[in-house]
Each structure stands twice: as C-alpha cells, then as structure tokens.
C-alpha cells in the first residue's frame, strides 16, 4: 500500500496520507552523539526539511537546536512514527530516546 509523505506549510508539519501528524516545536531526545557534545541531545524542532520511509519507519530530517548546549543544525534521519497496515502510528517523541540514523543511503 502506498503512503503519501510530505512536508507542509513550509516546514511546519509532516503530513502522512494527507493528515498532519508531526509538528515543529516538539522537544526530542536524540541518540546522536555526533550532533553536539551532549550525550543525548535535548533537541527542539524548529523546521521540518524532509520526510522519508524506510520499511515501516517514517523518519524526518529537521532543523533545530540542542537546548542544553545551543548547537544548531540538522541531525541525521530521526524516526518520528511507524506504519501499521498503512496507518500512521505515533511514537511518543517527547518521552522516548530517538535513534538517529546517519548516512545518505535512503534518498
């Protein structure tokens, strides 16, 4: 089943199958030691740049900053949700640690 993924309103949303699912302004814990010096960057999402699917995982590339050290920039692909039978299933992005995937093999 095909899924439609896009970034809307100039970086405000991830839309999955024409529903707005992931919004800027959330605070994420990233497992991405290469983003800044912090062990688990405490990352505020300011702009969504790109969205993609890798199997059943929906991931996004986002611009933002670590509120602990102030580093700004774009980490790797951050998982933001999953597909179950073509439906988007949220993960509790503000509570769980999100494993960031580096690399550009998924373009």
């Amino acid at each position, binding site marked *: 089943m095909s899924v439609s993924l896009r970034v*809307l309103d100039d970086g405000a949303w991830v839309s999955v199958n024409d529903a707005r699912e992931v*919004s800027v302004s959330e605070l994420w814990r990233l497992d991405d030691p290469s983003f800044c010096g912090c062990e688990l960057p405490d990352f505020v999402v300011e702009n969504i740049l790109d969205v993609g699917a890798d199997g059943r995982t929906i991931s996004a590339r986002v611009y933002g900053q670590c509120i602990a050290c102030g580093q700004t920039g774009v980490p790797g692909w951050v998982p933001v949700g999953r597909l179950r039978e073509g439906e988007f299933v949220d993960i509790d992005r503000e509570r769980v640690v999100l494993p960031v995937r580096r690399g550009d093999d998924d373009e």
Partner: protein
Amino acid sequence: MPTDVERWKSEVYGNEIREHLLEFAEQGWDTIPEDERDAWFERFKWWGLYHQRNGQESYFMMRIGTPNGVLTPGQTEVVAEVADEYARGPAENPIFGNGYVDWTTRQSIQLHWIKLEDIPEIFEKLESVGLSTQQACGDSWRNIVGCPVAGKDKHEHVDALPVAMELNETFKGNDDHSNLPRKWKVSVTGCREGCGQGDINDLALEPATKEIDGEETKGFNIRIGGGLSRNEPRLARDIDVFVTPEQAAEVSGAISALFRENGDRDNRYNARIKFLMDEWGAEKFRNVLQEEFVDFELETAGDDLRSEYSYNSGYADGGHSDHVGIHEQADGNYYVGLDVLVGRMGVDDTKELARVADEYGSGEIRITQRQNVIITDVPEEKLDALQDEDLLDHYSPDPHPFMRGSIACTGTEFCSLSIVETKNRQVRYARWLKENVELPAGVEDFHIHLSGCTASCAQPQIADISLRGMKTRKDGEPVEALDIGLGGGLGENPNFAEWVTQRVPVDEVPGAIKNLLANFEERREGDETFREFVARTDEEDLAELVEPEETSYEDPMMHNTKRTWYPYAEDDSMDASPAPTHGDGTPITSDD
C-alpha cells in the same frame, strides 16, 4: 525535482482557485477529498485563507490585503461586521474575548476561526466595499506596504500612494505574476522617515532624486532582497537603479518576471529572492534585469534620503519612530495615530473605531507596520472632542512607551510554525513592565518585538529588544523560552539585533528586561538611546547585562501550548477539540 507545492501550483493556481474554493464552500469542508486536502489548503492561501494549526482543523485564518494600509471610508465598518459575524471561534481568548481583528505588521488585516462554508458571504460583503483577500498569502505579490500617511504627510518627498495603488491594480490577479517561486513582498516609500520599511522587503522603492536631462526628477531608487525569515535575515540591496513614478510599475513587473524565471522552484527554503541575490550579487542582478527584462536604458540610482530615516530606527534624530500621536497633515487637518497593543482589537472596538473615524475625520483608517491604526483628516477644531472619546482611553495617542513599543505575532494560538504563545504574553509583559520598570529619563521610544519562531512575522530583529520563541528545561520540565536579542533597528544604517542570550524561560524575561534597563541607565552616556548604547558595547558585556530573573511576574502559559487544541480553552487537551466542525460549528463525526 519540483516540490509538491510546485506540482500543485502547476495544476491549479491563481484566480482559478476561486471557483473551486466557492464550490467547496457550497458543499462543505468535509467534501474536500482527504487525499487532496494538502493541495487545496496550499492553494487556498492564494485567496487569503490559511488553514489553522492542528486541533483547529476546518478553521481558517483569513487575511485581507489593504494596499498601503489604507481603509477607505466605509471599509472599517465592514471589516468589523465580518469579524463580528464570522470570526468567532469555539473558545474565548481571556484578554481579547471572542471576535477580534488583527492589524498586522504588513499593514493588512487578519481574522481567525473562519469557516470555509461562510466564504461566499464573506467575499460578497468584503467585495461590496472594494476589499479583497486575493493574494494575501501564497506565492505571489502580497499586500503592498508603504508609508501609511502617504499623501497626507507634510514633509514627504513624493506622494507614493498612487504608485502603490497602481502596483496593486497591475499585479493583483495578473496571470503573468500570479505564480512566483515564493511570496513577493513589495514596499513603496515616498516619505523622509522610511516608514515603508523597504529594507526588509523583497522589492523596495525608496524616495530619491535624480538629475535627468538637466532636470531634478523625483522618483525612487530600487533595492532588492530584504527579509527576516529563517535565521537568514537580509537587508535589501541597492541595485543602482532609479525609476520615475511613471516607470515604477513597468520596472517592478520586470523584476517580478526576473524572479519568476530565476527563483529556485526546487527548494522552498532557498526560493526567496534574497537567496538569488546572495548568489548573483547586485551587479549581476542589474545586468540581467537590464539585458533580459527591460526594453529601455535604466537610470543609475539617484540621491536618496536614507540619512533622514527615523522610523523604527532607535535613534533620537528628531523624526518619528512610529505614527502614534497627533500630527498635522499637509492640508492643515490632522492625523491621529492610536496605539493598538499587539495589534489586536475586539469587534466592538473596531466598530467604534469606524464610527469615530467617520464622526471626526473622513472615515478613512490607515494601518501601520507597527500594528497600529491612524484616523486621518481630522479638522483642528474637532481634536479635543475626539480625544474625549472612550475609545482613545484604550487605544491611546499618547501611550506608555512599553505599550507603544510592543509588537507580537500570532504564535501558538493559531499558527502552525510557532513554538511559543505570543500576543497574550506580550500584553502581560507590557502591563507588568509598565507597573514595575522605570525607563531611563527621556526614553520615549522603546521597542520590544516578540515572534513565536524564526519566521519573524513580528520583525523581532529590528527592535531594541528582540524576543524569539524557543524551548528550554526548567527544573527538568520542558518550558516555553525566548531568545533575547538587542539593538536592532532601521534608519540610515540598519542592523539586525545581536542574539546575546538564548533560551530564557518565559517567566524570567520581564526580570531580564528590568535588569537590562537598570544596567543601561547606570552605564548610559549623556542621553544616548538604547540602540546607540548597544552599538558601542561588546557582545559579551551585553550578555552579562541581561540577567534573567524570576520576579512577581507569573506566566500561566509555561507548558507546551502547541500541544493544546487552544491554549485558553477550559479543557485544552487535543482530545477535547471540537474540530473539525461543520459550517455551523458542530463537530464532524466519523459517521457523518
């Protein structure tokens, strides 16, 4: 690869969106096929409708474009009536009630909680008095801004109003210019004070004089590529071109065509003309314009008036910094600028404004880029009675500097990009500062601009104190926070604020401003302005002067207001949202 937005635009865009919009309005919001919603919401922007954020589905923000900020007699009343009837939401704002009008930083009008089903009636009412929402949002010529007292000002260099109006008439609904790579913001200024704020627009026409065939000719110099958004603020750059008022439309059209052909349609983050200007530089820009888009020889720039610019400048150079107060017009009548705190006015007050303008002036209202309104054409003998009106107690021509200097954008109340609550917070800040903080002697202009994110709709980078939405943790809990910038302003030598202190929890910001002002007073030399003080102080020293601190100010909106369906609702949880709703406001249920 072209973006989704470009693909949608290539299918249906511009004027033709209207018939689809009216048809969906007829059939109801829920008849927009689910898999076409993203595309239609993107297109509706072109007709001034912007879908509100999550939790508020089926409700729209509606923008009405008022070129140069002019509302002709009779229009203000209709705006108030439309807001009264159609801009009421399912929950009340604790400061502004339900039903209000926002006067915006681009001299437009914004209404909220608009239902698609009401659009045909709303358009009919607006259009009956010559108002329109066309191109108020979307990728085209936006509302044209300028000096709001153009044609009335005693000292203006040229009356730019006919030029702004000609541009509006030429480029609204013009198929050749209706699908640009991104928004296109134009400013036309004829006055000596720089009130058009051309420096932060894509295309700026600025007052100038040029000797042509031995004759001193008044007209405009052209600057290109200003804008504040996305951590990439730019001042418009001088392209060394002078135009006469008669050439203004032709050359502006040529520049818009250059943007249409050369702007980046593959990446919306890189699409604004400021990025093309980064890439090309002013000289190449001029060459391409001359060679490919204009049929006659362009004049080089004339003598400008920038050394006299005072608007929003942070300099005490004798000119005005805003339009608040009572000022004589060229015709001997007066204009009376009223301070509207954060630009929001309830519907009853807006009706009063229309009545008062009618009774004492010509009925005309003008909107400024500082979110204020101006009653024009008041004869001298009516000034006293006008000042006795109750309306002027709330919207003062002589407000406290903290009230006068406050600007705030839309924020988490309605806006999808926002990170923090803005308008209500700025009202709370201004009131607390007025009660608790003394300004140094003689400081009458002190601008504090609050934007909920880096899009910078409140123009934070050109204020004495710039506030921008962020997040931080306080006692381990995520809370709304603000970055604090200092010393921005326009004027002869415009510069953007330095962001000296990051991520201050919102309840510590008033304390930070209080301490900063005390430190300024202590170190102030003579009667220098705050901006002058910032300019001569090291960035590191400035950061030390900010000193965030808890005070008696309490902030009820520390939590993630974006996670609510409406921050001020009694039950604010997403699950409690009535949206989406039918035209009559009843929730649309899945078995509908």
